[in-house]
């Protein structure tokens, strides 16, 4: 049995994001004052500094802004995974987030590729949002 992958250890500000992911819901902070969406979560809007915001369901659709392919094993849990892609996905709503691109051979991942969210249940009630070609 290989070593388990690191599980996210949420900061207080991001706990609601991970709670929603458990239910396979994709929700990010949305400012009620100026309408800005942002990621990663923080306790005030980085566009207008308002603290009036809510975790809001978003489309889960976006495109690959950039990506890298890990060949070197940096953590023993990923020994069987290399080569694997870590991508920066730009959501339709604007924010970019780090993720894995799954369900496609690594050599077929490209910038601007349309993708959509899928949820990877990693055990202990934790689900990690990943993306797959749309």
């Amino acid at each position, binding site marked *: 049995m290989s070593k388990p992958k690191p599980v996210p250890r949420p900061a207080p500000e991001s706990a609601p994001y991970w709670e929603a992911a458990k239910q396979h819901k994709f929700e990010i902070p949305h400012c009620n004052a100026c309408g800005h969406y942002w990621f990663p979560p923080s306790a005030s809007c980085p566009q207008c500094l308002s603290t009036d915001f809510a975790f809001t369901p978003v489309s889960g659709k976006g495109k690959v802004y950039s990506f*890298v392919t890990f*060949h070197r094993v*940096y953590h023993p849990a990923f020994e069987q995974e290399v080569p694997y892609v870590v991508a920066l996905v730009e959501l339709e709503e604007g924010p970019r987030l780090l993720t894995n691109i799954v369900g496609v051979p690594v050599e077929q991942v490209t910038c601007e590729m349309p993708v959509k969210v899928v949820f990877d249940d990693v055990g202990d009630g934790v689900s990690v949002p990943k993306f797959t070609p749309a």
Partner: protein
Amino acid sequence: MIEPSRDLSDICAVVGAGNSRLGRVPGVSSLDLLVEAMRNAIADSGLKISDIDGIICRGPDDSYCHHQRVGERLGINNRFGTTLDNGGASQIMSVALATMAIKAGLATTVICGYGRDAWSRTHVTEEARVRNETRPSSQRPQEFGPEYGYFGAVAAHAFGATRHMHLYGTTRDHFGHVAVAFREHALRNPDAQMKKPLTLAQYHEAQPIVAPFGLFDCSLRSDAAGAVIVTSKERARDLKQPPVSIKGFGTHNNTTGWFNNDNMIVTAAKQSGETAYKMAGIGPDDVDTAQLYDCFTYMVVAQLEDYGFAKKGEGGPFAASGALRMGGRLPTNTSGGQLSESHAEGMLQVVEGVRQMRHTYPAERQVKDAEIALVSGHGGNQVCHSTLILGRA
């Protein structure tokens, strides 16, 4: 844009420069490596230790009030001292802050430096070698990274490389020319960590690390330190070395984040460079040699563009044209840089810029007739940047 003060241009000089032993220096702490470089800089300058009344340095990641421990080892009090924290941009900020402190009358002669023990720290035990970590665990992300297998600075910068390749057709071959040119320079530097030649074919054959980066796109794990001494132009006149004038400096930090806006394509070098050029009263065409923060090959390509040596998107072909080699349009990282000399987070680039301006190198290492050197610092979470422009006094 706010104009930088030209009153700070050409009022101070670097009068001493030194490096520690570089590469694999087991059994020495980063603190003592730094003090070794400082001793060498002091000897180089001909100053007495009691002449130094300022200490500005950046500490290693796990040290508190590092400059106080440096002062203890040098056996001096100081009128102006602090430890800076702006990643690889800190080293030039030290020199900039020294100039400002001298102008303000808070100090007369300031020693600046940085040292690290990244090779020893990652090789002290087999476990340390496997973990390959230079940062303490408290500084590592706990979410939005590790669960995806995202670790380290190689991957962070590789994102910029992928995007640049997508937008402009930049190739691995272009990056390879950066690595090969700097290795050529390192072979003329007896202190350099890397001693063997590197061909473009070997660059392409090397193991991939985090694609698009392979082994030779990545800077070195080094035990390494550098130091310089800054004083007023008046004091500099009668010292041992030809003084090297501090003509301008600038900083910029894209703290909106490396992953946001187009920060991984147009880096903070752009605004930092514009500020430094204005303070110095020069432009990119006046620069004879560049000492760029080369943590990864792509960062050299991006900075060549952001500093105006090539248009955005044309940094790769510029590097491939041979421009970075001795005798080229812009001999760059003439000591071998962090890719081939040693990695002291930009401090050795400052040291090399100073040495090029002295014109005391043998011909094979000297950029002929060089009057202006541009030095850069970059780092933190890829977003902070600083620029130093040095000239013949």
